[in-house]
């Protein structure tokens, strides 16, 4: 290895160590609680901002502030999460969907609070926790900080391995991870372990955030997402193996740094640049597709109790009719705003389609963005082509993962959405012309709103056979018990792919509607975080109720019109509180197994 390559590798070790640290935090929490802490990115972001404020605004020495945040604030926050959010969910036997939604609710809420408190602008002067001195070794200049990071990583990984191997305590942890409910019945300290898992996981997320901040620009959204993208190392480790997570994290960090030394011109250079900037996303994508199976905690089949939401009792069609009437009555400016409602409603209804098949998607932005992109490039038959494109994408993406378990499927969709955002939507190669044209007949704003209402009506119509009839019964059987459905000869994988195809088509159709409503294609609209907000909103209002989903779209568009960005905070709060305000939310999502 040349000196230049060696120096780059050393630089990559720093990022790799931070990714490894956050990965170990996620693994720790998962191993003792069975919950994938998807809020770790937001916790790291909040900790980094807190340290920045403590040092720069309050004048507290960096070491003291960092120690208080890592050893006191972050663990307390973790315990609070366990006490207020995740333990109540587990006591209600909530499924993977409800747990992930709650985690994203925490993420959205923390990002919203950070934006309000610290602003959305990027900071470049985050305090560094590590010594800045350098040592010369083998012809390379190595920062002392790298040794500290690697040492920390080694100690935590070793501790985690020792804790879960051999000892009686290790057996207890493994028993709790295996079946939390049975562990409680057997008198094992499942709750105490859960609290400890959240405390340690949050402390490690905070440490990772504070270590990463000086190396990047610190802002609430981008920083959270960047930290979140390191989830690939956890997936590669099958949520269980600390050494694999550390190995993949370090290898990815080094590879990312080494790519800086590779120069290509033209189109290959653009592709290389995209890969270099998003290597952790590529790892996430490869990991979810190639990892055979996670160790998932055993889930119980809960009673699939469906309650009739308030909106359902009022009637399923009135929102569609109301939109058509609104098209005639609204002022021109309001018509443009109202055009976003059916588009968002269709996107939210795509979650309903997936839910019928017992599926949950963390990455609907992949489909929505694809639909919007097709519509932007092809104005004449864009709506139809977008739906077909979404269906095709659904089939292609679902085929390799149709046999996977719910958490694995959910993470796959998230990886796809992140990759689509970074490698397609944000790339100049795919950027459509700045001014998007609608199909000829729909160029008028009022005509377009009526057409959207009709499109929304068609999607509502599509839901009928999914709930009733032969297909509906087949889907209900798979939702209730997959093994039983297989025993009865129901083709589970084929049905699942069909649901993915339909969900993809609906989401892409919604994306096309959105693109024609905005008359532009903005990649930021199809950022993965947006998809998580949509999922949280759909879950909060009751994913099984079409009218509630349409009402949620109305609420979100109106909220953002009044205060830009308000819908995210409202959705974050709603996702965290809804399961307790309305019993059916947990049960509805709990049925996703």
């Amino acid at each position, binding site marked *: 290895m040349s000196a230049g390559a060696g120096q780059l590798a050393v630089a990559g070790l720093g990022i790799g160590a931070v990714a490894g640290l956050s990965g170990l935090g996620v693994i720790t929490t998962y191993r003792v609680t069975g919950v994938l802490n998807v809020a770790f990115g937001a916790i790291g972001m909040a900790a980094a901002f807190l340290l920045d404020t403590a040092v720069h605004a309050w004048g507290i020495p960096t070491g003291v502030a960092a120690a208080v945040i890592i050893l006191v604030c972050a663990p307390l926050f973790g315990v609070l999460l366990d006490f207020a959010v995740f333990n109540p969910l587990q*006591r209600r036997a909530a499924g993977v969907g409800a747990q992930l939604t709650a985690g994203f609710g925490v993420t959205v809420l923390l990002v919203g609070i950070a934006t309000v408190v610290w602003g959305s602008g990027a900071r470049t002067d985050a305090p560094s926790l590590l010594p800045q001195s350098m040592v010369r070794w083998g012809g390379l200049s190595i920062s002392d900080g790298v040794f500290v990071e690697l040492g920390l990583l080694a100690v935590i990984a070793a501790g985690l391995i020792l804790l879960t191997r051999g000892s009686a305590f290790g057996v207890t942890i493994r*028993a709790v991870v*295996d079946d939390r409910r049975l562990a409680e*019945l057997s008198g094992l300290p499942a709750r105490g372990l859960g609290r400890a898992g959240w405390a340690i996981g949050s402390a490690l997320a905070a440490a990772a955030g504070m270590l990463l901040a000086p190396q990047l620009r610190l802002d609430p959204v981008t920083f959270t997402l960047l930290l979140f993208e390191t989830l690939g190392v956890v997936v590669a480790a099958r949520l269980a193996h600390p050494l694999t997570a550390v190995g993949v994290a370090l290898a990815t960090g080094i590879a990312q740094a080494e790519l800086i030394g590779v120069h290509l011109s033209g189109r290959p250079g653009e592709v290389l640049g995209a890969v270099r900037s998003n290597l952790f996303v590529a790892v996430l994508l490869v990991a979810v597709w190639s990892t055979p199976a996670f160790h998932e905690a055993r889930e119980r089949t809960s009673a699939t109790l469906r309650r009739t939401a308030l909106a359902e009792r009022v009637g399923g069609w009135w929102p569609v009719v109301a939109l058509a009437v609104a098209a005639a009555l609204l002022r021109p400016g309001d018509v443009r705003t109202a055009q976003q409602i059916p588009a968002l409603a269709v996107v939210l209804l795509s979650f309903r389609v997936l839910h019928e098949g017992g599926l949950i998607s963390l990455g609907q932005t992949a489909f929505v963005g694809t639909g919007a992109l097709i519509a932007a490039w092809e104005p004449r038959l864009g709506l139809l082509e977008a739906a077909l494109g979404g269906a095709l994408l659904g089939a292609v993406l679902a085929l390799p993962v149709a046999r996977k378990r719910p958490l694995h499927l959910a993470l796959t969709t998230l990886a796809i959405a992140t990759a689509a955002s970074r490698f397609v939507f944000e790339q100049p190669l795919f950027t459509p012309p700045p001014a998007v044209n609608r199909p000829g007949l729909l160029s008028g704003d009022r005509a377009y709103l009526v057409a959207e209402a009709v499109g929304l009506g068609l999607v509502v119509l599509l839901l009928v056979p999914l709930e009733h009839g032969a297909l509906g019964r087949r889907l209900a059987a798979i939702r209730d018990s997959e093994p039983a459905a297989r025993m009865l000869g129901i083709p589970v994988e084929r049905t699942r792919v069909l649901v993915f195809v339909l969900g993809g088509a609906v989401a892409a159709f919604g994306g096309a509607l959105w693109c024609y409503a905005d008359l532009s294609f903005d990649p930021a609209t199809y950022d993965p975080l947006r998809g998580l907000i949509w999922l949280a909103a759909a879950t909060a209002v009751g994913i099984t109720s079409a009218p509630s989903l349409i009402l949620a779209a109305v609420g979100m568009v109106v909220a953002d019109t009044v205060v830009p960005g308000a819908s995210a905070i409202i959705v974050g709060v709603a996702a965290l509180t809804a399961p307790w305000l309305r019993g059916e939310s947990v049960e509805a999502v709990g049925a996703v197994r």
Partner: protein
Amino acid sequence: MTTALRCQGVRVRYGGVEVLHGVDLVVPYGALTALVGPNGAGKTTLLEWCGGVPSTATREEGRLELSGPDGRSADSRALRVVPSGVNVFPNLTVTDNLRATGRPDRAFELFPELAALAEHQAATLSGGERQLLAVAGGLTGKWQVLLVDEPVQGLAAELAERVYQQLAAFVSPDRAVLVAEPAAERALAVCDFVWQLDRGRITFAGEPSELFRERTRSPAR
């Protein structure tokens, strides 16, 4: 006899269906108590409610009192529940299952057939072997009150008899055992006291011989 466990007014509802309608039940120390009743009577729901584990019930109410042999209030750690069906940790070996729930050495003494499976992963065991593992872990663990749901489900007749013998042997003045059984005859042959649960209500409480007489008088039951 000193009361070990007392449930009062237990009501459990799943959606619009109430499956336990204000059940009162007492388990005394020094006795093997049976809770009998047909499938769907609510036995499992009652045991799980006593265990206080995560539940999909939409409404639960009632009062649970645990007492020590001295009559003073006892900690919830005194209670152990061995559920039916899913009752072993599938990714742990037989030995590790027993380390988590009880004592491997003692369990292997009671049921030598488990010793032969010591290093097998629990997921690979047959239904009967899992049941035996669950009961062995429950029996050899730390408890004062043990509730076992369908202890001999899936076991051959000879092994079922041994399991019941061991359940009876573990009863002492400072230990209480309750077994829930749909097949009343087997439980009634060895237990000291019996509760009959039917459609969420207690329909009989007394000695097994009394229940036998009652059943003989009204065979439809």
